[in-house]
């Protein structure tokens, strides 16, 4: 297994930032594929050529017949399969790390801007609140307390694509194995190839043991495929459910506007709120409209209401800590919808409603108690 440590180390990081099903998939990969391959299958195939016997004295005939029977050994085929199947996860990991890095940079810049503004002095109360809110902002893709990446927006898309590619590669390798070798190895292989003078009987070494491992690895590949499909279904179903509940709540929307706090310029539109906090509106394109006013007091009120509501459903959702996502279409809608009248819209968003809380999903010490 030491030889697999290069890949293993990378995949450990992916393990931390996967969904529950993703973690199961990775565990299956580590234990049932890498470990079995490294320990058992390698020794079973160890003497595959030295004990490949042909019924001939012709020098070179055994070599060429072995080469014809096994253009690529099963073990090497599985090694390539494992590596190619793991690669999409590494791409996702790269994207996640990049996202985290960008967010850290942004946060640092905002802190710098805020520090500069504070130095200049003479801030209005509102601006101070805003800048404090900025400082408190959690990274939109990173929950520092849990150390987890929150799957949304482009990161979620990357994750979904990585699973799709993984599934395709898995299918390709399973089909490839079937095309190359069929399912079972035969004991006898009849070979006719120069310099063999005539069709020659060749006998494969340990065919039964090899068949056991072939069936095992095939079964694990199918299981991995099933897990990938389950994960896709899980992600797709939640997204569809989200969309359905959003469209069900559709009501006339107010005109969109921009909040005065400019630093969110790079985020998506923030819409002026309707008078009633409880109306969670969705625009036709599926984005949430935040029912906030620009006044800080009402912001805090909405946050409190939201917290009160969300905490009520928080424990109802059974999702583990690994997947904190509401599959929001646009991550840049920083102020999320305040009124979860339809709780299934927010599976795990524990705290989403304060303007100050961005994508944070945990209560902070400076929250007003509800």
């Amino acid at each position, binding site marked *: 297994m030491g030889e697999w440590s290069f890949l293993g180390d990378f995949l450990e990081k992916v393990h931390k930032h996967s969904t529950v099903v993703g973690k199961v998939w990775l565990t299956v990969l580590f234990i049932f594929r890498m470990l079995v391959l490294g320990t058992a299958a390698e020794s079973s195939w160890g003497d595959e050529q030295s004990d490949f016997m042909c019924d001939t004295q012709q020098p070179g005939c055994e*070599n060429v017949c072995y080469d014809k029977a096994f253009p690529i050994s099963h073990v090497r085929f599985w090694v390539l399969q494992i590596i190619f199947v793991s690669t999409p996860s590494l791409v996702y990991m790269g994207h996640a790390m990049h996202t985290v890095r960008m967010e850290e940079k942004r946060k640092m810049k905002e802190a710098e801007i805020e520090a500069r503004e504070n130095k200049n002095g003479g801030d209005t109360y509102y601006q101070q609140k805003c800048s404090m809110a900025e400082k408190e902002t959690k990274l939109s893709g990173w929950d520092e307390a849990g150390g987890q990446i929150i799957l949304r927006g482009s990161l979620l898309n990357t994750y979904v694509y990585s699973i799709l590619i993984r599934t395709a590669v898995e299918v390709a390798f399973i089909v490839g194995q079937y095309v190359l070798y069929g399912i079972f190895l035969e004991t006898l292989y009849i070979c006719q190839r120069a310099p063999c003078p005539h069709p020659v009987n060749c006998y494969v070494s340990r065919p039964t043991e090899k068949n056991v491992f072939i069936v095992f690895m095939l079964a694990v590949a199918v299981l991995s495929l099933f897990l990938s499909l389950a994960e896709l279904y899980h992600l797709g179903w939640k997204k569809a459910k989200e969309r359905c509940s959003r469209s069900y709540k559709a009501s006339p929307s107010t005109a969109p506007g921009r909040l005065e706090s400019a630093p969110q310029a790079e985020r998506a539109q923030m819409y002026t709120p309707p008078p009633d906090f409880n109306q969670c509106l969705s625009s036709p394109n599926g984005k949430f409209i935040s029912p906030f006013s620009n006044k800080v007091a009402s912001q805090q009120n909405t946050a409190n209401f939201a917290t009160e509501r969300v905490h009520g459903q928080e424990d109802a959702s059974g999702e583990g800590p690994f997947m904190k996502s509401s599959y929001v279409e646009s991550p840049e809608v920083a102020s999320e919808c305040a009124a979860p009248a339809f709780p299934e819209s927010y599976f795990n968003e524990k705290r989403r409603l304060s303007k100050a809380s961005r994508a944070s999903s945990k209560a902070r010490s400076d929250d007003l108690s509800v």
Partner: protein
Amino acid sequence: MDWGTLQTVLGGVNKHSTGIGKIWLTVLFIFRIMILVVAAERVWGDEQQDFVCNTLQPGCRNVCYDHFFPISHIRLWALQLIFVSTPALLVAMHVAYTRHEKRRRLRNGEKIDIEELKNERIHIRGPLWWTYTSSIFFRIVFEAVFMYVFYYMYDGYQMPRLVKCEAWPCPNTVDCFVSRPTEKTTFTIFMLAVSGICMMLNLAELCYLVIKVCMKESRKTT
């Protein structure tokens, strides 16, 4: 071969690389070193044992194997990987030297935060830019040289099934059969493809660094 040491050293360099540099490092470890260790070494493991010649003449097989495989693919790849990784060590040394200098200044009384020094991500500019860029250039050169050496030594990238050998003490032209030629060809082409990808990545990184500097210069002058 113990590649773990190389991984430890290059892991440190990873912190100070560009994004493309990090991708290159990942490709190097997973698609080259790992494939070499886990798969390719097994394929070439019995290359001399199962190199069979159609002769009873003692010594003929040894001589013919030596004639057709002056240096095994595995060893050549190991050399290639070591040479290609070495320029990154230059960057690591330069970074270590920069840190050492900063620490020296700190000891001499200048106010530098120790914590910041330890965790600082050193940006690629100034002399470090030159070191980094030349390390990428040398990487590209080494990759190209080794690709050519492979092509020259083995007459292309395909492993022949049959080789005809006339070296002494073989009494006449003797047929010799290579072990697992198809599998070896597969892996040779795979490693060649990954080398090509690594070279593309290095070229891209070089262009990125050069363009970044040019843009900075133009911003300064405007």
